[in-house]
């Protein structure tokens, strides 16, 4: 497994959140070290997406604190350090007439600031990002023409183009075919191991994920588990299920009886 640096990229300290008096998150304390690959798993409605929204400053927690690169969220300004691929990224208006190039360029807009235009350096960054996800040949195509898996890659390129320190992906494989899912995990693995990119992957698909991540966090309102993927597998095998987790999730996914 990858050597993990000590610097904490992202940290939540006793975070709680309620929605209409219903507790969604309770005392969630979690951290991600630089260079690690954390899989945040939990069933639907477990508060995963809510936690991500809190991390990104889209909603405020009722209690607890979040620190990004050591800075409290409220004072955090360097959003270009955080790349985000949302669950909704795939459900955008598919008739939107934008080219792949135009979509990836958006990832630079925040850090460019107002009254600035794309220059050669920016264009080179766009090329690089598309190359990293293997979509260079499609830069002139409109985003709506691409397959789900290809669009996925474009949105990852958009998140990568600002050269972030951490990439957060919220249920990115929903609605993407099995082969693309495989390629997708290979891509994440490459980014993590070769480029040293810190990754936070939110998913309900426990099976495939454990083979690629360095750490696992299991969330279902409270944090049930937070540790390395080896610890996770040991604990699962011995105490929780008593047999292979992968089998269970695959059976569940195909819609068959458990």
């Amino acid at each position, binding site marked *: 497994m990858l050597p993990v640096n000590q610097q904490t990229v992202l940290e939540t300290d006793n975070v709680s959140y309620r929605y209409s008096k219903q507790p969604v998150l309770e005392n969630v304390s979690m951290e991600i070290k630089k260079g690690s690959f954390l899989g945040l798993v939990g069933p639907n409605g477990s508060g995963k997406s809510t936690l991500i929204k809190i991390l990104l400053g889209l909603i405020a927690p009722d209690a607890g604190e979040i620190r990004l690169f050591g800075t409290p969220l409220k004072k955090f300004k360097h959003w270009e350090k*955080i790349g985000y691929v*949302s669950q909704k990224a795939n459900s*955008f208006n598919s008739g939107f*007439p934008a080219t792949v190039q*135009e979509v990836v360029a958006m990832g630079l*807009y925040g850090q460019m600031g107002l009254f600035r235009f794309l220059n050669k350096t920016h264009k080179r960054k766009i090329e690089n990002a598309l190359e990293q996800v293997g979509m260079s040949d499609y830069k002139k195509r409109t985003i709506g023409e691409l397959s789900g898996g290809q669009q996925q890659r474009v949105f990852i390129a958009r998140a990568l183009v600002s050269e972030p320190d951490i990439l957060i992906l919220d249920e990115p494989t929903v609605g993407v075919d099995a082969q693309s899912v495989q390629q997708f995990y290979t891509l994440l693995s490459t980014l993590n191991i070769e480029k040293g990119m810190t990754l936070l992957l939110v998913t309900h698909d426990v099976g495939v994920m454990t083979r690629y991540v360095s750490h696992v966090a299991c969330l279902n309102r409270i944090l049930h588990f937070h540790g390395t993927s080896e610890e996770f597998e040991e604990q699962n095998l011995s105490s929780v299920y008593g047999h292979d987790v992968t089998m269970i999730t695959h059976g569940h996914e195909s819609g068959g009886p458990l």
Partner: protein
Amino acid sequence: MLAVFLQYSFLRYALIIGLLVGFLAPVLGVFIVMRRQALITDALSHITLTGIAFHLLMAQSLTVLQPVNPVYMGMGFSVTGSLLLERLRHVYASYKELAVPIILSSGIGFGVVFLSLADEFGSDLFRYLFGSIIAVTSQDALVVSLIAVIVILFIIFFYKELFFLSFDEEQAKINGIPTKTINFLFTVIAALVIASSIRIVGILLVSSLMILPVAASVRLSKSFKQMFVYAFLFGELSVAVGLLTAFYFDVAPGGMIALTALLILGIVIGLKKETH
């Protein structure tokens, strides 16, 4: 044909304003349509009517207002209305589309009451509703030109933010785009363009010039930049053909502009049958 048209100064001014709003309206329309807010133009144009009606009522007792073009009051109302609309969209966070009919019906409600009190249900009202090329002054043309400069600069300098916001507002916010400020400025700019277009197209048909060229453009465009090229072409074509035919057939220009835009849209839909 054009020579006759240009003989009269008021027609010349009408043509200048027409050609200016002929690209301002559809270019802003691109962002409005992509954000799925096409109905916002109707809400803002109706609130402009309220402003015009208010001016006509006030002008009866305040003589200083009489020589002033009522459209300025309309602009003021439209800008205020646009701000109220943004507020309402936050009040009804999960029913955002409610903001539009609320503003639209209150605009008409107040407008009709003001017009009744002012006893102005005459040809003046018809002009504001459907547009007119009569009695356009050089001052009108100057004001719209100034607005055009402001709008063009706004779009050039905020293009990337507007584009990102149209595509995915949440992601734009995460990436550090000042979404609130941009939304605010955009609504004010839209209100100004709508009020400027009213002189020629009329309150009821502003949306035809803002939306129809974009509806045609979206079927042909292969990139976001192309959207503007087609919207610009279709908008100008609609205004040019609409104004000239309106003059020769002596009908309200708003109607002819809307019909021309509709004809272009019909042709484009006929040419490209695939769904969007």
